[in-house]
């Protein structure tokens, strides 16, 4: 197992996974406490439209995903803030329109048809080097914003009405949060793919919530748990391939490990609090 660490591609994947975990734990905690996981799912599926557009017009699919993700974040926050129509149905629309556009754009792309499953389920074992730079930048931006805005983000997530009463610009803070979520979601498309993004964003934070009554501590814990699941998934998929010649994608394994950790944590937590 340890010999895996000597392969550059594995080192890359490990580093990418750990970098992604930092932003995931921090932002995932906000997603969980503000109860906007379906909204985050909408953003990741919207980003898939950008992947397709990237192929069609010949730019980097990840750049397209970033553009679509940020645009969807702005649309959703505008509707959320003006309470026009139902947010729930808007999210479903953004969610499926993103997927539809992605498929249409890719079908229109002449010549080589790329393998979609690496975007749908992630492909962390073969991340390009520049992805590490992107993940690092996202981490720095997320940590800086959350460090500076922590009290305001906490208040807006906790009690938006009171934030407005005291003159904190709740709308602006919420929009900033959605943009950060979009950034993180695009990182996660590389790690676990469009479809599994919500699970990696929320499961570690939900586990962390069981063990902390404080948002700051919850974030730190979520970063650790997310890192554990990603590393665990990487080693598991390496081991399955090396020992059994089973080629199982890493993304789904990461999610299954996270779910297992959640189950164990829930049982232990219940034991601790009933005895």
């Amino acid at each position: 197992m340890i010999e895996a660490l000597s392969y550059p591609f594995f080192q890359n994947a490990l580093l990418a996974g750990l970098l992604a975990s930092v932003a995931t734990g921090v932002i995932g905690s906000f997603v969980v406490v503000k109860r906007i996981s379906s909204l985050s799912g909408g953003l990741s599926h919207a980003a898939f439209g950008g992947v397709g557009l990237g192929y069609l017009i010949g730019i980097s699919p990840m750049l397209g995903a970033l553009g679509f993700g940020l645009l969807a974040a702005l649309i959703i926050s505008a509707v959320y803030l003006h309470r026009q129509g139902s947010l729930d149905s808007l999210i479903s629309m953004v969610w499926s329109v993103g997927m539809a556009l992605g498929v249409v754009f890719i079908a229109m792309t002449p010549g080589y048809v790329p393998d979609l499953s690496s975007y749908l389920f992630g492909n962390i074992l073969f991340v390009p080097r520049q992805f590490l730079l992107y993940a690092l930048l996202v981490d720095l931006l997320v940590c800086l914003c959350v460090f500076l805005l922590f009290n305001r983000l906490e208040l807006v997530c906790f009690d938006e009405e009171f934030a407005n009463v005291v003159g904190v610009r709740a709308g602006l803070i919420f929009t900033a949060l959605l943009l950060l979520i979009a950034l993180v979601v695009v990182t996660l498309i590389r790690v676990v793919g469009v479809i599994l993004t919500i699970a990696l964003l929320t499961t570690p934070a939900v586990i962390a919530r069981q063990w902390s009554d404080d948002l700051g501590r919850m974030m730190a814990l979520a970063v650790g748990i997310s890192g554990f699941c990603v590393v665990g998934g990487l080693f598991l998929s390496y081991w399955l391939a090396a020992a059994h010649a089973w080629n199982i994608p890493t993304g789904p394994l990461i999610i299954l490990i996270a779910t297992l950790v959640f189950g164990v944590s829930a049982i232990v937590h219940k034991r601790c609090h009933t005895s």
Partner: protein
Amino acid sequence: MHQPNPIETTQLSVVLRNQPVLTDVSLTVKEGDFIGIIGPNGAGKSVLLKTILGLIPPTSGQVRVFGLPPAAARGLVGYVPQFANFDVQFPITVERVVLAACLARGRASKWQFRYSAHDRDVARQSLARVGMLDFAERQIGKLSGGQVQRVLIARALTIQPRLLLLDEPTASLDTPIGGTIYELLKELSPTMSIVLISHDIGVLSRHVKTIACLNIRLHYHHSKELTTEMVETAYGCPVDLIAHGHAHRVLENHGEGE
């Protein structure tokens, strides 16, 4: 130039979902006033407070808070909602709930990212005033409904507002605690103007300086005396207002037993 009044509404009307909720409400609250507003369910009491806070826009008429539009007066006004409209599962301690009031406009500098030692002092003093200091480290969901209500009052006090609006602040408190909250408000009333909504006419009348009746329209004579006529117009039917051994007489003599 004289100081602008804390609240000045002129012919304020609010229509929500095609239903008139407030009609032609002209209310003046002066510096140092302590007003209780009573009225039946659906009389628009909460909507009136939310309009003054700028959370609900008026359909017609005007609201001025310290001479400013409500959105510009934020940071001067404290608010205690009727219900905690947040998720009690949120991972936040009582102390941090109250500290959030330190983000109020005019109190916090835009570039202050951490709560200061002074902020903590103010928050802890407010918690002490409502008797909740011992619970400062508790997660907000691990309190009873009445305790949450007291935390909400402490949070509003931490703004150090010049005007305090309270929506049924004692609805979920038992009588002795409710009593201390009224004592606290009385103690605060020289330093800030207070508007209090309640359906409990008896308790209200013992503590506030003046009483208004609201039922879509406002009936207010800047006095503490409630005429049976005021109450009956507000409630739309004769109301049994026999005082149960209260120290003050709230009602005018209405010829009972003649």
